[in-house]
């Protein structure tokens, strides 16, 4: 049986924390997570997670985001320096990405489209 070291466990915990506890979020080759953005934003993500179709959509978009050859809509958000959204055009979920200099893109949260305005208002102070 494979032994799990303390550092591995710590690493797992850190990784899960960066995903705000959403265990099923896939690890990306080309992106990171930093979803520890407070209770409000975690709650918006929870709403997506409770909707099976929206959850599937988030997982599908993240897989496509990780595939350099896949087409995915990523749009810069007005009024933010380094924030973009991954989306389909429908009423479904939006994934918020921080594009910092010299670092991989970072998923900072996700929400349903009709929660996008309130979510962005929360992020304004930190990301403008």
């Amino acid at each position: 049986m494979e032994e799990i070291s303390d550092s591995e466990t710590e690493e797992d915990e850190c990784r899960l924390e960066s995903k705000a506890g959403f265990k099923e979020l896939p690890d990306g080759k080309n992106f990171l997570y930093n979803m520890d953005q407070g209770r409000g934003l975690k709650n918006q993500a929870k709403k997506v997670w409770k909707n099976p179709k929206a959850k599937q959509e988030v997982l599908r978009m993240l897989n496509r985001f990780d595939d350099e050859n896949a087409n995915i809509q990523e749009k810069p958000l007005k009024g933010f320096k380094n924030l973009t959204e991954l989306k389909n055009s429908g009423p479904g979920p939006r994934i918020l990405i921080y594009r910092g200099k010299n670092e991989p893109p970072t998923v900072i949260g996700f929400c349903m489209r009709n929660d996008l305005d309130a979510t962005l208002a929360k992020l304004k102070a930190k990301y403008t």
Partner: protein
Amino acid sequence: MLIRNIRILDEITDIENDSIDVCVDSEDGYTFTVSIATTKHLLQRMDEEKSNFSNPNELIIVVRKLTQEIITEALEAYAEDNAFWLKLHEFASEIDISVFDELQAKHVKESIEFNLLSGLDDLEKEINKFDKLNNAQKSNLAAKIEKLAQLLDSQ
């Protein structure tokens, strides 16, 4: 519904080929968020997806160009009739399928009722064709049919 303000959330890169999320602030203080795309953008998306139709879940407002004037014009149209279409776009992903199943069941019931009532009309005409029946018998049968029709109507 009166629109107080329209706010575009995404940067528009090409007014003829793009899709954006837009917030519509209503007079009563609620903010709707909808997606607006150009026809060219939808065609491009279909090409990218190698598809001959747009994705069913892409409930989107389609415009020729993403100018402020056209966006406002479109959203004002969607805000008419107590914002029925704006509300549909806003809440579509949260509508439970049972709402549609209920409507479908109601339509099926109405269709059955229609067929039964039409059948009774036909039957009444047929009875009136019989010469052997005297007028009292004909009236009696017609009254029974009428009673059945009323019973169906009251359902």
